[in-house]
Structures are given as structure tokens and as C-alpha cells.
């Protein structure tokens, strides 16, 4: 079996996950122009809530997933209402810093409630790996990929076809015009945060299922920044495509560069890519270029 193909396939599967989390970033950014740096902690929190529901209360996975999504909605609304609403119109540094502060708070709280021990997720997917004849995808990655794709498709469908989705797109393109058409911008802001939180929570559950959960899994949220920068901060398609590209590149780095530097390159690869993109094409593949006129 060709190792290169194997690595590319698992890279694509990881990329699907990155795409989903990136979608969470983009949904929030598009509607509210806030880059939520606490996304990683949203993921961790989702994974831990789901974990607790599964192991402590013995709830079957589909129901646990649903309950976790409800928790995500509550989290999204609370964060939007309590923390970001007062900062509308403040300079960008305040908004970024407040999300960092939020991330630190959530991390500390998760640490307090669940302690920093590393845990394995209970088995929620059938354990057989998927055999593609030229490559084998481990079960967690494969089912995670399926879940991520389903999640992404649902979000895309909502965005494209439903009334709410149209309202969200209207707000993203012009808040004033949307307001004057009778769209409640506040409602859309809250909704965007809910969707963002839901996307990251699904991502968190799947990643937790693959590599176990701990307080520190939130660092993946920062890695996904490379994905959205590559795709363009405000492009949904870009987020998904960027996810695949970064997923594959990262796994290739793990294969070819890691032995040269003694490990760890896989985790920073996305940051190197990020810097490169910013130098060459700061607005990403599909991002809207900001033109300032005086």
C-alpha cells in the first residue's frame, strides 16, 4: 500500500474536520466581523459536555449530540449577549482581546470542572476502518469526516435556501440595508454565534473521538486560523477548500519534514503556511480584498 496515498487520504479526512471548524469561524466573521479566537475552547467544551453526557448519564450518542448542540446554542447566545454586544463599535483590538479573554476563562473553567487529565472518548462509531483498497481510513477519522461533511452541508443549505440564511447573507453584505429591509440584525448576530458554536462543538466531539480529550485540545482552534486565512476570512467555500488543503499539507509535513527535525513539525506547519499566505496573498484564495479610498 502506498504510504503517500494513505497520508493524503487521511489528510483529506482531517481537512474535512478543519473545514467544519473553519466554517464556524467564517459564519461568525461574515455576520458580525468578529474573529472568535475562543473557538478552540468552544470545541473543548463541546467535547467535554458530550463526554459527560455519554459516560455519566449513559445517554445514547445521537441524543447526546443533540443535547450538546443545545448547549452550544446557549453558549453562543450568552457570549454574544454578555460579551460582544457591549463592544459593538469598539476598536478591533478590543474585540479580538475580548475573545482571547473569553478563551482563557473557558479554558480555566474546563480545567476546574473536568481536571486536566487526558481521557479517551467512549466508542461512538462502529470500530471497523474503511478500506479504500489503496488506503485505509481509521474508523474515527472516517465517521468524523462523514459527520463533518453532513454538518457542513446542513449549514450550507441553511445559508443558501432558508429565509434565515438569506437574512444572514443580507446582514453580511450590508448591515444598514438589511436593517431597512426589516431584518433584525441582533437576531442574526445571535444566530451566527449559535451556528459558529454548533459547528465548533461538532468538530470538538469528532476530534475528541479521534485523539482523546483534554483541556489542551483547544489549540487546534488556533491551527484552523491558517485554514480561514488561506480560504479568505469571509468565504464559506474557501473555508472548506482551505480545510482540505491544510489537512493534506499538514500530513505531508508530518511524513517528510518530521523525521528531519525530530518531530513536532506537523503542529507548526499550518503556522508556516499561514505566514506564507499572508506574505503572498493576504486576502486568501477567495477572500474579499479590502480597498480603502480616502
Amino acid at each position, binding site marked *: 500500500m502506498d504510504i503517500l496515498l494513505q497520508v493524503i487520504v487521511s489528510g483529506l479526512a482531517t481537512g474535512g474536520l478543519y473545514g467544519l471548524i473553519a466554517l464556524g469561524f467564517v459564519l461568525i466573521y461574515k455576520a458580525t466581523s468578529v474573529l472568535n479566537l475562543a473557538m478552540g475552547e468552544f470545541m473543548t467544551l463541546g467535547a467535554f459536555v458530550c463526554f459527560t453526557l455519554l459516560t455519566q448519564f449513559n445517554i445514547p450518542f445521537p441524543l447526546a449530540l443533540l443535547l450538546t448542540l443545545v448547549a452550544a446554542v446557549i453558549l453562543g447566545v450568552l457570549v454574544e449577549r454578555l*460579551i460582544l454586544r457591549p463592544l459593538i463599535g469598539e476598536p478591533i483590538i478590543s474585540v479580538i482581546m475580548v475573545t482571547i479573554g473569553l478563551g482563557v476563562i473557558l479554558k480555566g473553567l474546563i480545567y476546574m470542572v473536568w481536571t486536566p487529565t487526558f481521557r479517551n472518548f467512549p466508542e461512538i462509531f462502529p470500530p471497523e476502518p474503511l478500506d479504500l483498497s489503496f488506503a485505509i481510513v481509521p474508523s474515527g477519522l472516517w465517521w468524523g469526516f462523514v459527520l463533518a461533511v453532513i454538518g457542513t452541508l446542513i449549514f450550507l443549505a441553511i445559508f443558501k435556501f432558508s429565509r434565515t440564511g438569506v437574512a444572514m447573507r443580507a446582514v453580511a453584505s450590508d448591515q444598514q440595508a438589511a436593517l431597512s429591509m426589516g431584518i433584525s440584525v441582533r437576531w442574526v448576530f445571535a444566530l451566527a454565534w449559535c451556528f459558529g458554536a454548533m459547528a465548533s462543538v461538532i468538530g470538538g466531539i469528532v476530534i475528541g473521538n479521534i485523539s482523546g480529550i483534554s483541556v489542551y485540545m483547544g489549540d487546534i482552534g488556533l491551527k484552523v486560523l491558517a485554514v480561514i486565512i488561506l480560504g479568505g476570512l469571509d468565504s464559506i467555500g474557501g473555508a472548506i477548500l482551505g480545510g482540505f488543503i491544510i489537512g493534506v499539507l499538514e500530513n505531508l509535513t508530518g511524513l517528510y519534514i518530521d523525521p528531519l527535525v525530530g518531530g513536532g513539525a506537523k503542529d507548526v506547519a499550518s503556522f508556516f503556511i*499561514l*505566514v506564507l499566505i499572508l506574505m503572498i496573498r493576504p486576502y486568501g484564495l477567495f477572500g474579499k480584498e479590502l480597498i480603502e479610498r480616502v
Partner: protein
Amino acid sequence: MRCGDFKETYIKDEEIFQSLFVKFWLALLFLFLLLLPFIGNVYMLYIANMIGFAVIGAIGLNLLTGFTGQISLGHAAFVGIGAYTSAILTTRLGFSFWLSIPFAGLVAALAGMVIGIPSLRVKGLYLCIATLAAQFIFEFIFIHWESMTHGITGIHVPPPKIGDFEFTTEKDFYWITLFFVVLGVGYARNLIRSRMGRAFIAIRDRDLSAEIIGINLFKYKLSSFAISSFYAGVAGALWVTFLKVVTPDHFPFFLSIQYLAMIIVGGLGSILGSIFGAIFITLTPELLNYLSEIIKSYIPGHEEIFVPMKEVIFGLLIVFFLIFEPRGLAEIWNRIKAFFRLWPFSY
């Protein structure tokens, strides 16, 4: 009673020490700082040193973020670069500590300028992500460039010397810290009144307008990154010499957040604010330790809850200050001063 601010010449208006009152209190403060090593115990001097390093680093970040408006999430990386430069120069090349400090600053400044290059094309969010990437890339380099940094085992740094006298104790090192803090604060305070400082502020307020009135964005943005990183590098070099060891664990992303918390809590765009912030953020965990000791003696078995408490409190401080007091402790200080100056007729 003073009831207004009357100045007749520009020279008067530009003075650093605006009144006799300020001069008096500053002299008193300085006297206190000079006497501190004789009255304080080892623990107090340890804290004083830590505050000193934090002040230098926070002023650096405030020059970049508070005055020039360029957000940096990678300040810890520059602190680390300075620290490693100093450690490597003193242990490998036999530099004296005193010579290694400016080199630490210079190397950090160079790195800062490289990271600052994207700031010419991108700003706001994108720049902030670029600096975040720098943080993780340098952290990776510190761990994996083993021939230089000795990886996670770290480097032992010899204490600084003058002649045969070694600065080994907290008390001895306090003098070095105090010297650099005074130098750093004095330079920053003067810098912001100079042409360069005003250019920084113009760039922060509106970069396009600044460019139109003839400010060279390229030059001043990069200078800001360089000066900020220089401060960070010096702070890092002093810090690890004080700790006598440098490992990659000293410069996590959380340290960058801590520096940002200092300038936000203290006050963006205020030198005094950076000092307040540095003191506040350095003392908070110490206070928490103290509290946990007390609670441990009453209800034992719950001390592990205080480990994450530090993070939660930092986060809460950042969020609360941003929402309720965006101009930080410096503004509260000004309000208190104004209250007493104008009391009892505040209108």
C-alpha cells in the same frame, strides 16, 4: 487649590514633569525604590524584580499596540528571543552580561522587524494572526533547534559580574532591574513626545491620514516593531539571568496574553498604564497563592482549584476592563487625581 491648567509657552506644555507637585512625589517614589532593598525581605525583592521585568516588557508592547495600534499576539516570542540570545552569547561566546543585553535587544528587534513586514500589507485581524503564527513558530524553534537552545533541557545562565562581584541574590539583582526599568521608562516617556512618538500615534489614529500628512508608514511601523521587540528582548534577557536558567516553557502563548492583559488592564497608549498593569498582573497570582494558602489551612484538599483560577481571573480581568473601563487603571488613576485636585468644587 489648582483649578485649571494654564501654560504660556510650548516648552512648558511639553515638559515631562509638569509641576513641582509631580516632581516631589516622583522624588519620593524614587527614594522609596532606592530604599526598598534595605527594608524588604527576599520575597518582596523577588516580586519587585518580576515587576521590573514585566514593566519593561509591557512598555514595549504598549509602544507597539497602544501607541502605534499594531496588535501583537506574539510578544512572548520576542521575550524568548532576547532571553536565548543573551543566554547563548554569555555561555558560548563568553560575552559579559552587560554586553549581551544590548545584543539581546538588537536580535529581538531584528526578529520583530521581520514579523513586522506583513504589517505593511495587512492590518487589524490579519496582522494579529501573523503575530500569533510567529509566536508558535518561535516556540517550535526554541524547542527543536537543539544545537543552539538545548531543547527542553534549557541553558544555565551565569550570574552577571562587575569585577569580582557577582549579582547572585535578589537584592543584588534589584539594582540591575531598577537601572533598566528607569532607563526604559525614561526613554519611552521621551519617545512619545518626539517626532517618532507622534508619528506612532498618528498611525494608530488613522493610518491613511498619517500617510497623507507625510508620515512614512514603512519606516515608522517597522521602527515601532523594532523598539517594541527591543524592550521585549531586554526584558527576556534580564528575566532569564535572574532565574539563572532558560527553557522553552518560559515563553508560552499564555505569556503573550499576560502581556496584553497588562496593557489592557493598565491602559492602552499610556506609559503609566503599562507600569500599573505590570504591577497589577504580577501581583494577582501572588495574591491568589496567598489566598490559597489561607484556604488550604481551613479547608484542605481543594488547593488544585487555584491552579486554573489564575487563568480564569486573567480572562475575567481582560473582559471586564475591556467592557467597563477600556482605558484601564491609568484612567481610574486620572479620575482619582482630578477628584482630589478639584475637590470640593469639581465643576
